[in-house]
Structure formats: C-alpha cells, structure tokens
C-alpha cells in the first residue's frame, strides 16, 4: 500500500512539465536574448485549486510596461504546447531582485552589449558609485550618463576607453 502511494506521488505531471518548458522559453520583449527564466521573472508553474495550469510571474519594476506583453506571450506559448486556458498569476512578494538573474543570463546580457548588474542588491549604496565594466571592450574606466535608460531596469553609461555608450542593467 505504501509503495503504491509512493508510486502515485512520483507520477510526473507531463502537462505541467510541457507548460513549464513553454513558459520558460518566453523572452523579454526589450531584451530578446534573455528568457523570463534567465531574468527570474518566472517564479513557478503549478496546478491551481481547480486543476488549471497556473504560471506565476513577478514584475521587475512596479510600472514595467513589458509585463502585459510577457503575460500574453506566456499564455500563447503555453497554449501552443497544447494546454488550454492557462492562468497567469502575478505576485509582488517576494520582490524581484537582480540577484535572481541566472549566470547564463548574465553572460548572455554582456554578450548582447548590456553590462550585467554588479554586486548584490542588498549591498547597494545610496550615494555611491560602482565600477561597471564596458561590455564592449571590458574597460572599467566608465562613467554614468544617466540613472535611467531606455527601460526602467537600465541605466545609461559611457566607456571612457572605447568611447562607446552602453546600457547597464541596474542592481535592484
């Protein structure tokens, strides 16, 4: 009897697994080299109380305009994987942090020309500066042009060595 219960529990929910793979493949519309899994925006894929597939996501910033599009794209990706009417659940807690960004994600970001977040979010200084390396030439001789870049999550920097401007993914 106990063996049977064990067996039942170990049955893999294949549909859920397919939903997870589909959801994890969705990319950030602003940074198409990163998936929502790389970013840490995808929190969980689970069964809701009514057995429907639920995809749990968390916004990077409160007002991030990409969230609506990301939710829509998850819905389409999961439906393409053959799962009908998935539910997208947005949670605020725990609050998203750049610490959740995966190592492959950081590497992809740098290769794409965006400097990945430096250091840990918990140790950010209010009026201090961090040394951000240029994603093009690697120099640490860079300066911040503006705290806010083309999206809420980025700041604008300039490399003093190769003179190229670049985006920096802010530590938050």
């Amino acid at each position, binding site marked *: 009897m106990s063996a049977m219960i064990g067996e039942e529990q170990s049955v893999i929910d294949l549909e859920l697994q397919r939903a997870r793979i589909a959801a994890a493949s969705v990319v950030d519309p602003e940074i198409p080299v990163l998936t929502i899994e790389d970013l840490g925006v995808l929190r969980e894929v689970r069964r809701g109380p009514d057995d429907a597939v639920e995809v749990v996501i968390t*916004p990077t*910033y*409160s*007002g*991030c*305009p990409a969230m609506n599009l990301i939710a829509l794209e998850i819905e389409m990706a999961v439906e393409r994987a053959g799962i009908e009417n998935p539910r997208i659940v947005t*949670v*605020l*807690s*725990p*609050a*998203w*942090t750049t610490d959740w960004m995966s190592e492959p994600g950081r590497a992809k970001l740098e290769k794409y020309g965006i400097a990945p977040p430096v250091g840990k*979010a918990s140790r*950010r200084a*209010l*009026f201090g500066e961090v040394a951000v390396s240029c994603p093009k030439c690697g120099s640490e001789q860079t300066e911040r*042009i*503006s*705290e*806010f*870049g*083309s999206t*809420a999550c980025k700041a*604008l920097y300039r490399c003093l060595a190769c003179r190229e401007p670049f985006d920096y993914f*802010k530590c*938050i």
Partner: protein
Amino acid sequence: MTQVLFDYTLRLADTSLILGHRLSEWCGHAPMLEEDIALANLGLDLIGQARSLYTYAGEVEGRGRDEDALAYLRDANEFRNILLAEQPNGDFAVTMVRQLLFSAYMHPFWFEMCRSTDETLAAIAAKSEKELAYHLRHSGEWVIRLGDGTDESRRRVIDALAALWPFTGEMFETDPVDTALIAQGVAVDPLTLKETWDETLDHVFEKAGLARPDDGWMQSGGRSGRHTEHLGFILADMQFLQRTYPGATW
C-alpha cells in the same frame, strides 16, 4: 477597519498617481533627452505603484471598483493625495526639489512598510522601496548639481525650496485613520521617519551649499480632500477620455 484601510491605501495610491502624472507631463519637454527618459521612468514607477495600491483599495472596499474606476471616476474633493504631489512642475529645479522632498520621505516610509502586518501593503512596499532608492539618488544628485552649479541654477533651486517647503509638513501629519492602523502595525508612524528625512536632506543641502529653509506655516488638507486649485486641472487632463467616453478601451 475596512474603511480606514481603504482610506489609508487610497491616500497612498492618489499621491503616487498624481505625482506620477505630473512627471509624465515632462515627457518630450525635459532639458535633455536623458532627463526626459529619466523623468518618464520615475513617473512610470509611481504609476505602477499606484496601480497595485488602487487594485488593493478596490478589493478592500469590496464594491467592485477597480484601479480604473478609482483613478478616472472620482472628483477632486474625493482625491486624498498630499498637496506636494499636485504642485505644478514649474522649472526643472522645482520638479527635482519636489522629487527630493518626496523621495527622502517615501524611501524610508516603504522600508518601514515592508514590516506591515498587512501582507499586500508589505509586498507593494518591498518593490516600491527599491524603486524609491533610485528616485532619491537621482533627485538628490540633481539638487546638489543645481545648488552647486551656476548662479542661475542656484537661484532657481533656492526659490523652489522656499516655494515647496510649506507643503512638507503634511507628510508628517496623522489623523484617526493613521493612528488606528499604526496601532495595529499596518501603517507607518510618519513621525518615526522625521529623523531619517532630516538627515537625508541635511546631507544633500550640505553638499549643495544650500541652507535648510525655516519651518514656518505648513499647508495641509490634501489628505482630507481639500486641494489646491492645481488638482482640478490634472484631473481634467487625466480623466477626460473616461468622462467623455465612459468605459472606452483600446
């Protein structure tokens, strides 16, 4: 309990929305492109926070009002934002001083709110605290740059401080709505933020070579629906579409 929690959440939502809307007015008009983008980003954060707060306020109220109903279908005397938030953008110095006075208060406010016994407010706080840290740094650096800049930028920042200082007292007021929720560990007691607010501003003023204005007459009323004449114009602009074409979507 439900009524005070609704009132409290609505005040926070209205303040974030109105200041967010004010910042959005700079879009396409800022002194340079980078700053245009920065101001839009600050506004976006605040409007995002307002959306979460309105949604929660609507749930607490339980009368079926969603974020849009609360933002677009109330009149000026029903808005509960602090007066500082609705003050006109003026010149760039006024906008940056307003942002500094607000962010130096709201950053520690959200930090404390993370420990609220209300789970939803604590969750909204955890996101907002991170965002406000950047707003504070950005506005603080600008006030230093303007105060320590040219005679012209210095004159403007001094004028802005003098004009906006009388609106700062309202941030530290408490009424029965606040005290009821402070007692339950839901709300933050604003008086506990005063020391941090003072320290942050003194730090900026010292670096900027600016004198801290004297505390004199403090203007208040926004939190109970008595507003300056400016709010009506914001609402006329912001609510026009929903008032003219109720329920319009696109």
